[in-house]
């Protein structure tokens, strides 16, 4: 190992940190205007994507603390792209007083994502989780004059720090059992020792932190408040980036590190292991998320509960447990992240015009700005899983991989539950669309101000991507499958 290697292999992360430092410095001077900072951040992210592409094909540093593989490179690019779109959303957000600091913390949170994605070692994963978590707490509470933002930040912080304390305790137990934090060594050690209760306790506690990050019920309590109260770009980043990275790393921990402690969650044939726990989380998330979403009148809160349900669907791929299942999980979570970023873009524009994001603020959007309404319907219908949008293919891939897994379709009960949940979800997504297209324009809507170009363009691009991946998903799927090989 040489320090030069470390610098070379961690250069994408380092370049993002450098960009953040420059953004901070520029923010102190007179030149730190919003467009300048936005441009700088975008250029920095683009350069980092280029640096990721120039990484070697395969490399492992320090027992897996930094792993370069097609999979990690692909998801580093996805993380960077999500950060790119979030910066675009942040540019016109008027509630952010310290804009340079906001962007800098956003970039550093993106470093956290890249670390999570690019590590196969529990210690670095934990530090990545903390870096990501700490940045997101700050981003959530950033609009500190707004009491909802402050409340959301406090709730997120309290839940998050408790969850990561459990995770750290769990990791320490697993480390005590196996004597190593590297996932590869862990898998090897655990496959030769017989299952001990201490290991089970360690695994369960390790999972708590990740269940919190993906907002799986019953660890979802922070999500509605954060989605509703946080500044819109922060909520969008939490809903997209944090979720994608958590699923990637959760998949790696479960399917690589704890593979020998899998157990089975087949109907009437459950075997102790992590699989029954994850299936329980998935089932609870699907039911609770969908049913509670029915009662929501705030669009952001509705998206939060639907996010809980989507977290449940996505877990199905991990339960399937084979390469197909993992790639379905990765595909679905990526598509979901793009969709949700776009939906938050539309919400940002509506909020700018009508001053709120309740359902009635969306009334008459179809007449006011048809293009925006079409974008929103693409996002919502993709979330509901209608063809020909990306969400449909994602769900199909996910459910079919879960259906095929196991000896005699043992996961059928969960697939049926997920299908039932999707059916319910169609109802509340359609309610939003009904308000957008059929309801009369509310009188409180102010005259449309000049729309920020950047948000519009970003939303349009995201809608196009969702459509494109729905019509032709093979490109992304082939990439993910090849990366997992």
């Amino acid at each position, binding site marked *: 190992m040489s320090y030069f290697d470390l610098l070379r292999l961690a250069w994408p992360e380092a370049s993002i*940190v450098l960009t953040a430092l420059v953004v*901070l410095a520029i923010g102190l001077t007179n030149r730190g205007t919003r467009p300048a900072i936005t441009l700088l951040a975008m250029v920095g992210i683009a350069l980092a994507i280029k640096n990721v592409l120039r990484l070697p094909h395969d490399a492992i540093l*320090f027992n897996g603390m*930094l792993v370069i593989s097609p999979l990690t490179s692909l998801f580093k690019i996805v993380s960077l792209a999500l950060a790119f779109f979030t910066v675009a959303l942040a540019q016109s957000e008027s509630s952010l*007083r310290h804009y340079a600091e906001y962007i800098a913390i956003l970039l550093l949170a993106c470093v956290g994502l890249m670390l999570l994605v690019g590590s196969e070692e529990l210690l*670095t994963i934990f*530090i990545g989780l903390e870096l990501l978590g*700490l940045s997101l707490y*700050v981003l959530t509470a950033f609009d500190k004059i707004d009491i909802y933002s402050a409340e959301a930040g406090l709730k997120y912080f309290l839940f998050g720090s408790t969850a990561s304390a459990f995770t750290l305790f769990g990791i320490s137990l697993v480390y005590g059992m196996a004597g190593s934090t590297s996932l590869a060594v862990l898998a090897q050690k655990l496959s030769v020792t017989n299952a*001990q209760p201490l290991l089970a306790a360690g695994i369960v506690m390790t999972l708590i932190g990740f269940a919190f990050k993906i907002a799986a019920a019953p660890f979802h309590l922070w999500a509605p408040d954060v989605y509703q109260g946080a500044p819109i770009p922060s909520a969008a980043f939490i809903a997209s980036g944090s979720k994608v990275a958590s699923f990637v790393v959760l998949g790696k921990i479960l399917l690589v590190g704890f593979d020998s402690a899998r157990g089975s969650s087949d109907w009437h044939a459950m075997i102790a292991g992590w699989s029954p726990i994850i299936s329980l989380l998935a089932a609870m998330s699907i039911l609770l998320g969908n049913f509670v979403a029915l009662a929501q009148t705030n669009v952001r809160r509705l998206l939060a509960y639907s996010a809980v349900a989507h977290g449940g669907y996505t877990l199905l791929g991990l339960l399937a447990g084979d390469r197909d299942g993992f790639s379905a999980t990765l595909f679905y979570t990526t598509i979901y992240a793009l969709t949700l970023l776009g939906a938050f873009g539309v919400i940002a524009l509506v909020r700018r015009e009508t001053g709120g994001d309740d359902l009635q603020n969306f009334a008459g959007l179809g007449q006011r700005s048809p293009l925006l309404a079409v974008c929103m319907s693409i996002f919502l219908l993709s979330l509901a899983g209608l063809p020909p949008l990306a969400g449909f293919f994602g769900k199909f891939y996910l459910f079919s991989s879960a259906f095929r897994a196991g000896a005699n379709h043992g996961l059928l009960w969960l697939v049926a539950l997920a299908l039932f949940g999707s059916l319910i979800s169609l109802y509340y997504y359609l309610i939003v669309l009904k308000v957008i297209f059929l309801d009369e324009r509310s009188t409180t809507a102010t005259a449309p101000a000049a729309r920020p170009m950047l948000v519009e363009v970003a939303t349009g691009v995201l809608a196009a991507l969702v459509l494109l991946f729905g019509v032709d998903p093979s490109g992304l799927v082939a990439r993910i499958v090849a990366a997992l090989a």
Partner: protein
Amino acid sequence: MQLFLFWCAALLMLVFGVAVILNRNPVASALSLVVSFLGLATLFMMLDAYFIGIIQVLVYAGAVMVLFLFIIMLLDLRAENLRKINWPATAGGAVVAFVFLIQVLSVIGRLTDAKKTFPPLARSTIDDVRNVGVTLFTNFNFPFQVIGVLVLVATIGVVVLSKRELANK
């Protein structure tokens, strides 16, 4: 002697840990936490982890506690005169904590390796601070750098969130 010291330190830690939650005066609670930390530091030292023990005193008992006291004084917290105890919540918390304790005990009790006597650690030829330093800057260099980034985020976040905004801005 070792065993006696262990029990002394552990008892100190537990008694003052309980005192943290039972005390009605927040300043007394914070100072009880300091004593609890000192007990913990003693335990670390008995495990030959001198560096961690000293850090425990310097950073936790020193800096973190100063911060706690600051916050108590900032918020102008007084001793609670009439604390209303929310019985259902307290009972629920106690049950959860108790069940968790039983679980941890039974899990550790059923661990077959726990019944073996632990082989004595080989005494290191170099002192532990140097050991920590060498490990930190070679094998664990990458997480170390990430911690630098983490501390930077903490600095920015804390300052941005707690800075008073000027009225005209």
